[in-house]
């Protein structure tokens, strides 16, 4: 059964910087065309999740672009640790602005940990999407799946193209 996380809402923090390679995860303020931060060292899915691989265990969350478009996150529902997940499958959902939105795993494997802080503070998804707002950790069953994900430059192009089309 999916873990139910209760929460109170937090203000939506709009990230507006683009990090450079090697920079800390709190990059200096700078404008980018898409007005959302995209960090080096991560891989990205077209559905706006990010992945950071650390020795075969991947941390997954949603991007700054995604949290900005979703609005204030007030509830996060994540699949329990121990469950298997396949690339493209949902591992949970977030609630914002009266909507539940599914979050999909960019990689396959076993969920080994979920972010329990999101139970009381779901707004971390908005205020710190790449750090404190991480969602799950996956022990990878096929690390080669990372090769098909977008690098930061390609993901930035994807976001800009998506926003321009609407």
């Amino acid at each position, binding site marked *: 059964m999916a873990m*139910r996380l*209760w*929460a109170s*809402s937090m203000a939506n923090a709009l990230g507006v910087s683009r990090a450079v390679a090697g920079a800390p995860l709190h990059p200096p303020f700078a404008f980018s065309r898409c007005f959302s931060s995209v960090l080096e060292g991560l891989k990205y899915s077209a*559905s706006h999740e990010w992945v950071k691989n650390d020795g075969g265990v991947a941390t997954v969350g949603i991007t700054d672009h995604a949290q900005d*478009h*979703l*609005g204030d996150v*007030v*509830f996060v*529902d994540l699949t329990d640790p121990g469950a298997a997940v396949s690339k*493209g499958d*949902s591992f949970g*959902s977030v*609630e*914002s*602005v*009266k*909507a*539940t*939105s*599914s979050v*999909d795993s960019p990689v396959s494997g076993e969920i080994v940990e979920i972010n329990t802080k999101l139970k009381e503070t779901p707004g971390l998804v908005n205020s710190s999407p790449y750090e404190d707002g991480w969602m799950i950790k996956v022990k990878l069953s096929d690390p080669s799946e990372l090769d098909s994900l977008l690098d930061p430059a390609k993901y930035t192009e994807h976001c800009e193209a*998506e*926003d321009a*089309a*609407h």
Partner: protein
Amino acid sequence: MAVSHAKNGSLPLMNLVRTTAFPIINQLHLEEKLLRTSSENWCIINDGTVDSAIVMGVSGKLSDLVETRSVLRDRIPVVRRFSGGGTVVVGKGTIFVTFICNKDAVPGLQPYPCPIMSWTARLYAKALHDVVDFSLRENDYVFGDRKFGGNAQSITRARWLHHTSFLWDYDARNMRYLKHPPRAPKYRSSRRHEEFLCPMKGFLSSSSDFVDRTVASIEDHFSLRQVELGAVTDSPAAAGYTQSTKLLTEEELKASVESETEV
């Protein structure tokens, strides 16, 4: 991803199911099934559900939102739906309109909560263009500063659903089953339900008039194909689909009462 197109190719196809007195729990089961297993666009319009019921959003906490003792005493069903949003009391005076669409069904519409909400608001604004003061206010449909329709959504990777419960008319006594929610729009200004809500019956000649207007507005965007409710409900459930909408049990309601007592 499949996109349904009308035979003439000009507007995408949408299946329209128009019914009355369909129980809300059955409607929500159908909606969730269509969202998760269909590749077509759907509009479901249900003019009034059979009996009164309380419908909570996916994250709603019973003790915060519902007068559970009264609900138990009066045996009012409580449903937890799969979409977000708040808690409503529905009944025979409620008109339900639901859109279930592929991500690319509406050209230029981003599948996120606010754009979808704005698109539906424009659709209803067209339907109610001669009704004074209709607007979307903090995600509610209002006449002036009084709410007449509540919205909720569920968005998946490839599809989105937006459903609305419109207050054609309601029994004010049913509002006693609802607590003042901990999360409320600012424009509500702490008003009680009776001062905050507004029935539509004072603005239109009949509920079917509203439905007809809505259908006409939908036809600006989709080519509609009428589908009988039985054809959809009788279709077999898709494999691998797990339904999350559920009717809360008496035990769950009692447990909520006990938790309030302990506090």
